[in-house]
């Protein structure tokens, strides 16, 4: 009997190609989207799950509360926090600091810039890594040792057996030989810890003991079951004692009044945290809300596909009603008819699944590109997911097949044999399904339009400056003379239109106005050329100018949001104090432009051109003609002036 059901189902598929194709492709598309989203969400939720000590690792994070109640959250702390807290809080059994740096490495014929991580020697006691060469317990004890991944071993030595070989690295401003003490497997794509080269942090000359300077990830290992709130209370006491003098000095020197609270963030929470994000070389954070939202969309799309399947089956049931009548007349029971229609549903479902899998496989590279992921099709083949997909297969088959099966098998044989079936008017469920399907489809269409307009806004929104053909290149050791040389050399190519030195994104500083208002605006350190390089416009006053040599130490420019936030009625000529130390006179107000995320309103910003504040990058405006040639020229010029920099173009 089963073979008969399958035979009939197969012939029905062949005989009604339009119906079959629309039904199978609809469901397949729904399933493919569902599978892609499942892969995405699984990847997001699986981040860092493979670490053995995943539930014992915490990151030290800090909340900074201003007297006005404004709270800023940092996922990083300083160099001193980890050792100090570990020494005095007995619950901490291990501590690892993790800081990304870029180093120049001399190879046989070139100098390349390589990302590397300064870590404590106990790194591999906390974070799992498979050593293909070397010993994990000894790997980072010698300050002159490095651990690299298989990928880097192959890149620099053409072999993964690289232990004992050395790399010439520009470390603390001199080239030194580091010996490879271990080669590890490349980190999994769903790991927050993507270090390809690890250097013992005790090699660094940095002995910074600042308690109010946050630039490094600090991880603690704390046994499960420990009262975390109690450990955080201990941190507060330790900080109050150990940082007392520094806090007092900061209050005196630059009017620092913020309250700092140190907290422990579970390691598994980092990837999806929106408050304390993954920073400083940790793999970029995801957004748990986005994952939930996508899961909802996946469910709704699958629901629409199922409802579509049911509606098509019902619509076609009128054509098949005679068959039902005949089968009943010659002896079929209702149960047998239900089995028949269910088997047809499952067969169609099976084809839809196969097609869905093919579609998923085909679309995965494009999806990876769009979502900036490295999802692998093999993710689908894990026991949990397979169970989920088998459940979806059964559920879809039952949902999509059971109702039409029940409806068709319930037809009165006499009415069907004499063509008196009338589905109109009575079938409330089908009407409800159609209304539901159209409502959902309408919702998705409207949602897609809104999203398109939103994306379009991000692309076409006037940012307040010309963001096209603008290049930022980071460079260390920028001096006034070098900046001058670079500018002259660059401008030998007529495609280079303007060059300005700037500080790297995104410094904030303490500023007080003459009325005593304390502010924390973004600070841009630059020179007179920035107005042309960025295409900024002035609202009032002037920008920095070579005609006013005192600008570099006496003048500041602010934006409109600064004026508004500072309640300044006539800002030109007013004096502001930066870092509670240096006085600058406001000589101009630039029109607001978006210098942070478009999600934010324009934030207050202050521009100064004091070389003592330091630069760290060049901002270069080029023409849109012959861009590759211009970029080569820029690279050559920068390399000629900064032979061993941590430069990235």
């Amino acid at each position, binding site marked *: 009997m089963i073979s008969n059901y399958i035979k009939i189902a197969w012939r029905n598929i062949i005989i009604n190609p339009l119906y079959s194709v629309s039904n199978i492709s609809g469901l397949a598309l729904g399933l493919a989207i569902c599978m892609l989203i499942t892969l995405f969400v699984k990847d997001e939720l699986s981040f860092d799950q493979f670490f053995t000590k995943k539930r014992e690792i915490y990151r030290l994070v800090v909340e900074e509360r201003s007297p006005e109640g404004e709270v800023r959250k940092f996922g990083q702390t300083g160099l001193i926090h980890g050792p100090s807290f570990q020494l005095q809080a007995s619950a901490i059994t291990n501590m690892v600091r993790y800081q990304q740096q870029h180093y120049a490495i001399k190879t046989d014929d070139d100098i390349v810039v390589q990302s590397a991580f300064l870590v404590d020697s106990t790194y591999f006691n906390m974070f799992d890594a498979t050593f293909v060469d070397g010993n994990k317990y000894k790997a980072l004890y010698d300050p002159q040792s490095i651990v690299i991944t298989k990928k880097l071993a192959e890149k620099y030595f053409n072999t993964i057996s690289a232990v004992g070989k050395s790399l010439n690295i520009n470390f603390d401003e001199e080239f030194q030989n580091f010996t490879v003490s271990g080669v590890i497997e490349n980190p999994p794509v769903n790991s927050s810890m993507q270090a390809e080269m690890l250097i013992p942090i005790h090699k660094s000359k940095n002995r910074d003991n600042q308690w109010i300077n946050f630039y490094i990830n600090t991880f603690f290992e704390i046994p499960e079951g420990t009262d975390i709130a109690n450990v955080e209370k201990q941190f507060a006491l330790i900080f109050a004692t150990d940082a007392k003098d520094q806090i007092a000095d900061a209050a005196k020197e630059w009017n620092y009044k913020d309250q700092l609270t140190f907290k422990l963030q579970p390691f598994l929470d980092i990837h999806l945290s929106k408050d304390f994000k993954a920073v400083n070389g940790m793999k970029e954070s995801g957004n748990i809300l986005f994952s939930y939202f996508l899961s909802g969309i996946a469910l709704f799309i699958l629901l629409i596909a199922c409802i579509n399947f049911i509606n098509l089956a019902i619509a076609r049931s009128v054509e098949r009603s005679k068959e039902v009548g*005949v089968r*009943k*007349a010659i*002896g*079929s029971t209702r149960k047998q008819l239900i089995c028949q229609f269910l088997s047809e549903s499952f067969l169609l479902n099976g084809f839809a699944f196969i097609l869905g899998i093919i579609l998923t496989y085909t679309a995965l590279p494009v999806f990876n590109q769009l979502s900036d992921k490295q999802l692998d099709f093999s993710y689908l083949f894990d026991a949990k997911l397979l169970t989920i997909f088998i459940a979806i297969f059964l559920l879809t088959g039952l949902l999509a097949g059971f109702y039409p099966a029940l409806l068709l098998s319930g037809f009165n*044989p*006499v009415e069907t044999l004499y063509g008196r079936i009338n589905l109109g008017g009575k079938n409330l469920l089908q009407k409800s399904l159609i209304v539901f399907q159209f409502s959902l489809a309408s919702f998705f269409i409207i949602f897609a339009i809104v999203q398109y307009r939103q994306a379009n806004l991000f692309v076409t929104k006037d940012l307040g400056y010309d963001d096209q053909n603008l290049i930022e290149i980071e460079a260390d050791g920028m001096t006034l003379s070098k900046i001058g040389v670079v500018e002259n050399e660059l401008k030998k190519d007529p495609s280079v239109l303007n060059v300005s030195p700037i500080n790297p994104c995104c410094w904030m500083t303490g500023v007080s106005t003459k009325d005593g208002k304390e502010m924390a605006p973004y600070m841009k350190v630059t020179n007179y050329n920035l107005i042309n390089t960025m295409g900024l416009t002035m609202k009032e006053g002037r920008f920095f100018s070579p005609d006013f040599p005192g600008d570099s130490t006496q003048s500041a420019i602010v934006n409109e949001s600064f004026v508004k936030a500072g309640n300044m009625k006539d800002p030109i000529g007013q004096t502001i104090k930066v870092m509670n130390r240096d006085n600058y006179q406001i000589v101009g107000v630039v029109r607001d432009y978006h210098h942070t995320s478009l999600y934010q309103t324009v934030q207050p910003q202050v521009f100064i051109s004091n070389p003592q504040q330091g630069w760290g990058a060049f901002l270069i405006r080029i023409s849109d003609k012959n861009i590759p040639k211009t970029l080569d020229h820029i690279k050559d010029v920068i390399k000629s002036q900064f032979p061993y920099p941590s430069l990235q173009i």
Partner: protein
Amino acid sequence: MLQTQNLQKIFTTEEVETTALNGINLEIIDGEFVAIMGPSGCGKSTLLNILGLLDSPTEGSYNFHGTEVAKLSERQRARHRKGKIGFVFQSFNLIDELTVFENVELPLLYLKTPSMERKIRVESALERMNMMHRRNHFPQQLSGGQQQRVAIARAVVAKPKLILADEPTGNLDSANGKDVMKLLQELNNEGTTIAMVTHSPYDAGFSHRIIYLFDGKIVTENFHV
């Protein structure tokens, strides 16, 4: 074989009630060939459907093979119908997705007849209807007369005691119609009871008895000798 008493069928819609059968008292004995005639809308097909257990009467009694079946549920009627009644329809009602062989095999599948026996019985029925050469064809590939022969093969393959035929020659030319009637007559001669609805006096001439219906009542009965 079957006996009805005061059989009534009333169709009720939201607006009107229509009496299709109004007090039918009918007895058909084993081996009889009965033709049911009458104008359109007189209740012939309704009577045939009730006799074939496809429908249930509103009132009255219906005794089929010694069992009172008038009040049975759809499921119970299906169980009684299976293997005991064969149907032949005016529009053949073959399943388009199945071959000739598979169409004829279907009643045996529902009866869970073993596969070897199924094959023998289907081939025998098709040979008898002279349709073996078309066993692998689909219904659309056959002429009307051939389709009706397949329908008769399907009706007889389970060896039912009763065959109900609703205008079996209605869609056929006279030559094919005559062939079909001869087949039915042969089956009847071999002991199968047949009740046939027809408009054709010629077809009715093959029966032992003609019942005339009018407005849901039996108005005349003619016996052939």
